[in-house]
């Protein structure tokens, strides 16, 4: 039984089609990666799932409910949290206010204090910086805040779009450790990454997306050994 399922999803912007007939499933508790080069449609895929753009064709099913074409603010309420590319924090708001906005939905609001404690346990630096403006923090701290803000909505699945983007190599390793810890807390994760070697160590399964189509799919350990992936993306 899958938690999230995309069936033959086609989507794009204006006359441009970025995704063609994409099939993808994520089971509860699973961590799944979508890898691929720049412009493959990875971000579009995430935006379709969270409702920022509507698919042109195909279906999006989450826990048995069809969500295709629903607006983003309704999809979050089903338990899908999207950490967008570039983090998209509210730079002029404090860390605490950013986290508060993560718990904007009534159900999340009711458990705000409890969620905040969990996020602060996971990312102690956010507790130290709670009254600082989000925009004034380092890239790594901002990515932690983006993750923490997503957790505040009490999601069932977290969509991570290029979490390592713009981070120093040492910070990338730390971030992947943190994502691993989030995973151990029982969250289901769908992650899009260009840092293929790192992300394949983190997830159970992965998809290779190229020019808007799924080219390969399999267990992360198998894909890491796959000749095509090794040559093209891992650089070995």
């Amino acid at each position: 039984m899958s938690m999230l399922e995309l069936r033959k999803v086609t989507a794009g912007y204006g006359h441009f089609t970025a995704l063609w007939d994409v099939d993808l499933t994520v089971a509860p508790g699973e961590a799944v990666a979508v890898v691929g080069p720049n412009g493959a449609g990875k971000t579009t895929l995430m935006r379709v799932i969270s409702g920022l753009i509507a698919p042109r064709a195909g279906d999006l099913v989450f826990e048995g409910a069809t969500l295709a074409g629903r607006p983003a603010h309704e999809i979050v309420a089903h338990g899908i949290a999207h950490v967008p590319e570039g983090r998209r924090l509210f730079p002029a708001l404090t860390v605490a206010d950013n986290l508060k906005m993560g718990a904007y939905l009534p159900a999340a609001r009711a458990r705000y204090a409890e969620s905040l404690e969990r996020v602060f346990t996971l990312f102690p630096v956010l507790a130290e910086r709670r009254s600082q403006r989000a925009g004034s923090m380092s890239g790594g701290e901002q990515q932690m805040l983006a993750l923490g803000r997503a957790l505040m909505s009490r999601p069932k699945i977290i969509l991570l779009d290029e979490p390592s983007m713009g981070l120093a190599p040492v910070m990338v390793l730390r971030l992947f450790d943190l994502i691993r810890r989030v995973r151990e807390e029982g969250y289901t994760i769908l992650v899009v990454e260009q840092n293929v070697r790192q992300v394949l160590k983190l997830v159970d399964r992965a998809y290779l997306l190229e020019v808007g189509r799924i080219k390969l799919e399999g267990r992360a350990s198998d894909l890491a050994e796959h000749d095509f992936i090794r040559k093209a993306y891992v650089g070995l």
Partner: protein
Amino acid sequence: MIDPIFIAEAAVNGILLGGILALLALGLNLIFGVIDIVWIAYVDLVMLCMYAMYFLVQVYGWPVWAAGLVSLLLGALLGIGVHLLIITPILGSPPVNQLLATGGLLFFIQSFATFLWTTDHKTVRLSLPSYEVAGIFLPAGRIIPFAISIVAMVALYLFLTRTYMGTAIRAVSQDRDAMRLMGANPQRVYIVTSAVGGLMAGLAGALLIFQYSVHPFFGGQFGPLTFMICVLGGLGNMVGAFVASFIMSEIISVSGVLWSTEMGYVIAFVVFIVMIFARPGGIMAKRQ
């Protein structure tokens, strides 16, 4: 030589006027900062609320507080109405169309008010006491509106910083799509913003009617000034608009005593033009 006591009195009057100007500027600036559209007809909504006050208090004899509540409610409803009927359809269109639409609304409201109520100036007069402190003449009719304005602005500040909706209003102004991902419906946030902006207009109308007479072209008296204050403070910058209100009201009030009221406005506009060249981002903007 002008007696210094007159200048001191003008300075005090400037502060009292600044309170109401700040109320107008914050309402307009809140809407601009969040929805990114300048409501050219903002002060004309104030004018409609002043007419409501005139009819309720002067013609039908309602108590001032009850009429004031109606004015607040009317302002909020007008704000929501403007957003739904005029702003929503043009949200994605070029800025010039947005200016034309809200500018068109201004002419519509002015003409409609002329049609309904003629161009006669209508006045509501309350007999309130005046106090003399250290030789300065302080009318209660100006102190009470000032105090109410300050309370309203503190309430606005608390709303924007302490509540989920207020924080969401600030968040939407920074990143609309990210706020959708938090589960907020941007249209709902815009409607609340417009209602709060309208509420400020309703309150300003309820306070201004006791100091100024209302007529269909009242907007021309305060509209440009309010817009100027917002630009001077930095469009969308609430603290800047607050400070700029008092700078402008002091210039107008003090030079009004030194020379004439007309000269006061001339000097205010000259200061504005100079400041726009010196600090195009507004007085509170960081230097490049």
